[in-house]
């Protein structure tokens, strides 16, 4: 398995049994779970020797690269002192904060369960479940401040919840009642990008704006393993590196892009892709909320301090289907699911809290009640969402009045007025 013996170690702070890791990076690779069991096919990638031509020393032009060397992070350093560094980055996380993380993980899973149920009941058209990815989303979202800005794909419901998106409105888009479920400026988070990877470029441009504004914040772009094959993601890496802008590329490698295992996308661990762009790459156990929090804090601080872009590969697993329209039993084995169930991100933190005596029955009950409350709001908000009026079709196509839109709106309304029984 040399192709998957990662050169970048995987950061893990809590193991699947809820035990804090004492000696650094995890054995997740050696347990053989990382890559779903499809052998890479016959195309040989090797045999071309890298030549001795050095690319070095040409200055990047245009926007000044702020004098911080991209090599500042030296990811290799993680092996020796890195784990201590990451542990220190979450040293402030005591029992109370741990319980908060636990609560958010449980709430986010409950949102997912409720939304899936609402889809099965015909109340929303489609849902993209995040089941299994709660820690990657909650851990990274907890590293963000209000000054930061988020560019999500369509599965980041957990991030949206942590950013303050209103659960009552969260299903608007999925119900087909509105084109989006939140107002970007209210929660510092763009609307979901459904064309995968497009948002990595938006994030890079936004980060350039932050740099030009001297804003001090950072941008985080979420995307999946499938999106890493998109040209836009490669272009985003290129532009972000060229401009040295404060953007964290957060890849949730959930192992599957609908039916395609990650090996269809890449012959190297995705975190290693960064090196070719001159960007530091980190890999983290995406089901370890504490490690995700630490690694994302590190990356954001680095970015905010002028260190430029950074890529995080969070290894996780999509426990559910790609969307409610998908049937994963057609392409993956129950055994694989069982392997990942043993690394459940919520079990892990609950076990940690129990081990450390930080979760009594009352506290556990409060978490359940919080989740029920949010699920209730989600359901009620969904069921109470009014259907949009027909003329909403024409709203916000342009900022200014537009003659064609105006005429077509009038024509539709005139047509509807002729229909018997049409309710206005």
């Amino acid at each position, binding site marked *: 398995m040399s192709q998957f013996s990662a050169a970048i170690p995987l950061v893990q702070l809590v193991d699947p049994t809820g035990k804090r890791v004492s000696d650094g990076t995890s054995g997740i690779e050696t347990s053989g779970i990382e890559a779903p069991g499809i052998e890479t096919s016959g195309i040989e990638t090797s045999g071309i020797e890298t030549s001795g031509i050095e690319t070095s020393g040409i200055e990047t032009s245009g926007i000044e690269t702020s004098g911080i060397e991209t090599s500042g992070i030296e990811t290799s350093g993680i092996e020796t002192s890195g784990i201590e560094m990451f542990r220190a980055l979450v040293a402030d996380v005591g029992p109370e904060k741990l319980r908060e993380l636990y609560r958010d993980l449980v709430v986010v899973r409950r949102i997912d369960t409720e939304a899936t149920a609402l889809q099965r009941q015909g109340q929303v058209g489609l849902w993209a479940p995040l089941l299994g990815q709660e820690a990657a989303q909650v851990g990274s979202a907890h590293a963000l401040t209000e000054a930061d800005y988020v560019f999500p794909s369509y599965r980041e419901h957990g991030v949206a919840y942590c950013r303050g998106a209103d659960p009552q409105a969260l299903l608007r888009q999925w119900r087909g009642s509105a084109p989006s479920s939140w107002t970007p400026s209210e929660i510092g988070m763009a609307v979901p990008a459904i064309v995968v990877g497009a948002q990595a470029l938006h994030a890079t*441009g936004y980060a350039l704006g932050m740099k*030009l504004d001297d804003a001090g914040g950072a941008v985080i772009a979420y995307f999946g393993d499938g999106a890493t094959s998109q040209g836009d993601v490669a272009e985003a890496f290129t532009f972000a590196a060229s401009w040295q802008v404060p953007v964290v590329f957060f890849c949730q490698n959930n192992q599957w892009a609908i039916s395609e295992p990650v090996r269809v996308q890449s012959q190297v661990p995705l975190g290693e892709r960064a090196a070719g762009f001159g960007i530091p790459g980190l890999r983290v156990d995406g089901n370890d909320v504490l490690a995700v929090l630490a690694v994302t804090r590190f990356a954001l601080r680095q970015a905010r301090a002028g260190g430029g872009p950074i890529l995080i590969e969070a290894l996780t697993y999509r426990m559910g289907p790609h969307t409610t329209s998908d049937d994963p039993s057609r392409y993956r084995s129950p055994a694989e699911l069982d392997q990942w169930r043993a690394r459940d991100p919520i079990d892990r933190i609950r076990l940690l809290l129990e081990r450390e005596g930080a979760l009594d029955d009352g506290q556990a009950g409060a978490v359940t009640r919080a989740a029920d409350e949010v699920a209730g709001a989600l359901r009620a908000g969904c069921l109470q969402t009014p259907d949009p009026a027909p003329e909403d079709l024409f709203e916000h196509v342009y900022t200014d009045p537009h003659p064609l839109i105006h005429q077509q709106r009038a024509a539709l309304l005139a047509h509807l007025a002729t229909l018997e029984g049409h309710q206005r």
Partner: protein
Amino acid sequence: MTTMTLSQAINSGLRRALEDDPKVLLLGEDIGRLGGVFRVTAGLQKDFGDRRVIDTPLAESGIVGTAIGLAMRGYRPVCEIQFDGFVYPAFDQIVSQVAKLHYRTRGHVRMPLTIRIPFGGGIGAVEHHSESPESYFAHTAGLRVVSCSNSAEAYLMIQQAIASDDPVLFFEPKRRYWDKSEVDENIGLDSWPLHQARILRTGTDATVVAYGPLIATALAAATVAEQEGNSLEIIDLRSISPIDFDTIETSVRKTGRLVVAHEAPVSFGPGAELAARITERCFYHLHAPVLRVGGYDTPYPPAKLEEFYLPGVDRILDAVDQTLVEP
């Protein structure tokens, strides 16, 4: 009044936009130190710095995609796509993102981008350097699509495009970059609406509508027609989306004949849209079918063939003559 080439006029318009609004940024390939392959941005990086006139990596999707992020951050980016045939890598970002983000966010996110594209043929270029892709974008809701035909229009319209809170695709007639004409540099941005057509020459026998590089051709055709005793009304469409049908309709009600000329292939082109709409609006005033003169439905040809591909004075006059034949 100052005499300047069309490319200098765009340069002056960009300069004024950079001066007037600190949020205006230029992004593109080779636009900085080189001043663009057509020198449209010459001197701007020197005067405004490399934080406002930015040489990007060579990736069109990247240029437009990062401009979207800048717009979300409150900037007013002006992207240069180096040549018409290079815009397609940015197609998703333009059509799925730029065009729809205002709609997708229920009006909360504006996309005040300008995407400048030198377009059209006639310069003897190699493939992918002479195309007219405006129809792709005019077909997409959320975008505005315009083209300038002379220096004064270029100076005014580029500033209006940049000032627009909607995204504007700004098509520059590259074979007219070096044509000189008068520009009033003190002209106000509200002197003529961006999306209103302009009657350049009044006439009574037939209306010829064109835009961008074919305006000079249409005007030349009108001069020849006059010698033949035919009076042509020449209208510069200026805006391909939205189209100012009112001006065209008024003209056609008068002349009863319409010829539309553009370099883009005729099938599904702007001429098709004009023919349909004008037929709807003034069917009973038409004395002849609306005719289109345009590029053929072939790929843009090698340079030695482009004189046959591009609509010239003779092809426009042939069409005019066809509309004038009494049944």
